[in-house]
């Protein structure tokens, strides 16, 4: 217990760790701040959900229409008073909006904006069925095959993949998973913002810290030339075990500090109240003509938890990888270089294997490939995001790293240390 504490102290005593945490948090807050302009508009969604619930059905749709009509009427009263003009759609107002901004007070403008947003919801709801009817996955399979230049066996895999995704899509439509309100993805892109921009940034930040700390703590005795004393003591070479535990603990600590602070601010800025139970595959969450289709029915809250879980697991993998490399190399500077090279290689390899070989699929089962697209975890997007991608990666790498660590321990136990 005591040893762990001392090892953890080594991890955090260097001022550079706290400086980096501060800088990284500043980056994250800056990113959120830059995106915060839309927070008022997002609140309309919360109001709608509070008023009508988030499930879209005929009854709800009718209520929404009434609400929209009354809103539009109110808006038209306002514009008639101000400009002597009424509008059929609130959206039309904004095509001429520029010239009128000075005439309206903040509050009046807000009324019009709100009407326009309710209008978008109303109009988009009418389009849902049509959009999903037009989704042609076999067409998408063809496009993927052409775009990535797949052929033979890999093309077969692609077609199979889209068959599977198509089944899931049918199931999803059957369960009316897509008919739920959420922030309008086409406009606000909240899914990309949270899970791609912010989450990926955090993954890289924490990864940098984890690698720095793990390399430092593991090679500490060799770097400070205390190895002859420590590894000759009673605890002896088992000290490496303590270092491993300390490294994993430190990784979790760093992750929770960065994640905790950033997400706290994020959810204070953007109000998600009432939206936690909405499925991630909702039509309104989609940002491109092709919607996000999660492989399992997942609510936003559950999805966030799963992503956070994957986040922590990936960081633990990075810590374990660095740990194994450190025992072999024993010089923290070269460890950092080696880790970057490993990272580069694992990202590079899937890109250079021949397109006809199934290797282009299984070389992607690495944490390094995984962290490049956190917004597509558990989601069927294209052939490189299969259903079992995440958990299989986790299982494979847990085994691989367990073996690697055991081998390095065995090697280290018998090694000539001087």
């Amino acid at each position, binding site marked *: 217990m005591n040893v762990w504490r001392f090892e953890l102290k080594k991890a955090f005593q260097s*001022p550079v760790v706290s400086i980096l945490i501060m800088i990284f948090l500043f980056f994250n807050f800056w990113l959120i701040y830059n995106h915060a302009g839309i927070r008022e508009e997002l609140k309309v969604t919360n109001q709608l959900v509070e008023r009508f619930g988030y499930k879209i059905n005929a009854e709800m749709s009718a209520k929404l229409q009434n609400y929209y009509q009354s809103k539009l009427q109110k808006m038209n009263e306002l514009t008639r008073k101000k400009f002597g003009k009424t509008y059929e759609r609130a959206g039309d107002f904004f095509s001429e909006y520029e010239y009128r901004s000075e005439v309206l007070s903040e509050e009046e403008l807000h009324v019009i904006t709100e009407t326009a947003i309710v209008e978008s919801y109303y109009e988009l709801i009418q389009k849902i069925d049509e959009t999903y009817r037009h989704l042609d996955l076999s067409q998408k399979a063809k496009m993927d095959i052409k775009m990535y230049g797949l052929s033979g066996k890999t093309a077969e895999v692609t077609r199979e993949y889209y068959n599977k995704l198509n089944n899931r899509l049918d199931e999803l439509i059957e369960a009316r998973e897509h008919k739920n309100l959420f922030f309008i993805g086409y406009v606000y892109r909240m899914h990309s913002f949270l899970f791609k921009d912010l989450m990926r940034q955090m993954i890289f930040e924490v990864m940098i810290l984890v690698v720095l700390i793990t390399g*430092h703590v593991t090679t500490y005795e060799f*770097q400070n030339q205390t190895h002859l004393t420590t590894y000759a003591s009673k605890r002896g070479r088992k000290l490496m075990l303590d270092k491993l535990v300390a490294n994993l603990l430190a990784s979790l600590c760093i992750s929770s500090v960065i994640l905790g602070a950033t997400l706290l601010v994020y959810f204070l800025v953007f109000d998600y109240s009432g939206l936690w139970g909405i499925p991630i595959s909702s039509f309104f969450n989609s940002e491109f003509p092709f919607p996000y289709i999660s492989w399992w029915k997942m609510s936003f809250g559950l999805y966030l938890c799963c992503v956070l879980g994957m986040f922590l697991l990936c960081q633990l993998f990075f810590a374990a990888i660095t740990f194994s490399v450190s025992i072999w190399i024993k010089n923290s500077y070269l460890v950092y*270089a080696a880790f970057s*090279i490993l990272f580069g290689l694992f990202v590079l390899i899937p*890109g250079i294997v021949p397109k006809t070989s199934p290797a282009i699929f299984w070389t992607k089962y690495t944490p390094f490939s995984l962290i490049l697209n956190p917004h597509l975890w558990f989601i069927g997007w294209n052939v490189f995001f299969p259903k079992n991608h995440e958990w299989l990666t986790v299982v494979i790498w847990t085994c691989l790293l367990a073996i690697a660590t055991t081998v390095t321990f065995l090697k280290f136990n018998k090694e000539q240390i001087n």
Partner: protein
Amino acid sequence: MRIILYELKKIFQLKMVCLLFIISFIFYQLFINFYFEYFPNGRPALDSYHISMKMIEQYGYQMNQEEFEHFKKVYEKEKVAADAYLQARQEYVDAGLDTYEKFRTADREKQEIGELMDQIMFEDEVDLFWELQAREHLIEYYEYRNFLYSNMKFGDLPLTAEQKDRIRDTIASGNIMSYEVFENYNSLIRHVAILIVISIMFMISPIFLQDRRNHVVFLQYSSKTGRKIFNLKLLAAFIATGFITTVQLGLFFILYRGNKVGIFLNSNINSVFTHEVFWFELTFLQYILLTIVSIYILTFTLTIIVAVLSNRAPNYISVVGLQVPLAILLFVVVIDYLVVRITNIRLPIYFLPSAYVLLILIGSFLYFWSVKREKKVDLLH
């Protein structure tokens, strides 16, 4: 002299050179190779590159109104050829796509029309149609050249009189330069600059720290050379930086020759076709030289910063950790403003010189501060 040689040997240890080689290779594969392999990227881009080349061959490096009329005539002639192409095919006539005009404005959303269009553009890749599209863009750029006035604004700031003068000169000049070539070079040099920064950080970081970790520093400071070793090592670092930068740039330009941009080297980059205006009448070659010079200044300043960090940091985690924000600053901000698109009129004319003066000042300040500190530093604490 001998010490510098030994220091250089230490910097260029076989191990480090091999690692640098691997890092550069991976970086090339991941970020740089794309701009060689896919240049020009995609279809109208390829055609517009060829057409720009033809324009220079026909009209010289400038195009006047008369030559523009000729250019438009060629477009009309090709359009007639496209009409004939369409009319020769029954399915297109049946679908109401019997002229190029109709073909361009047809509703892609309709499935059968979309398929017919895809047949020509993507399946058969008919050169004529792609070329027409590229010519259309070029004509548009020339005709709507006043668009430069709004394009060259920095944020919401209104244009100053000098900026307007430069834009007017550019519009009047009719310079021909390929947008594809220019953008391709900018993307390339940006990534090459990043690679050079990484290389230098990687190679120079251990320079002082290594000696302190090995306790060689006690021997060095008590020898005849004594505390002068700081200057000698820094000099070695400078030589190493110059060498690394030169080799990286040299390799890059050898590869860049494969992009075949020779004819554009004498083009003026102030052009309505590049959508960019610069403070000076630079040819593409002069612009390339300017970016090279700026990379050298940047790397030498960076060397001082890294060397001083290496001299002060207690361990590798600090020296690497402190360079993380520095690297982010360089990659996200500095390289974009001080290497890529330099002397662009979006920024004031005095921005670039003052930025470089500031950089050099930071470097010299750090240097003198370290020298002063070196003179009385207590080695045992």
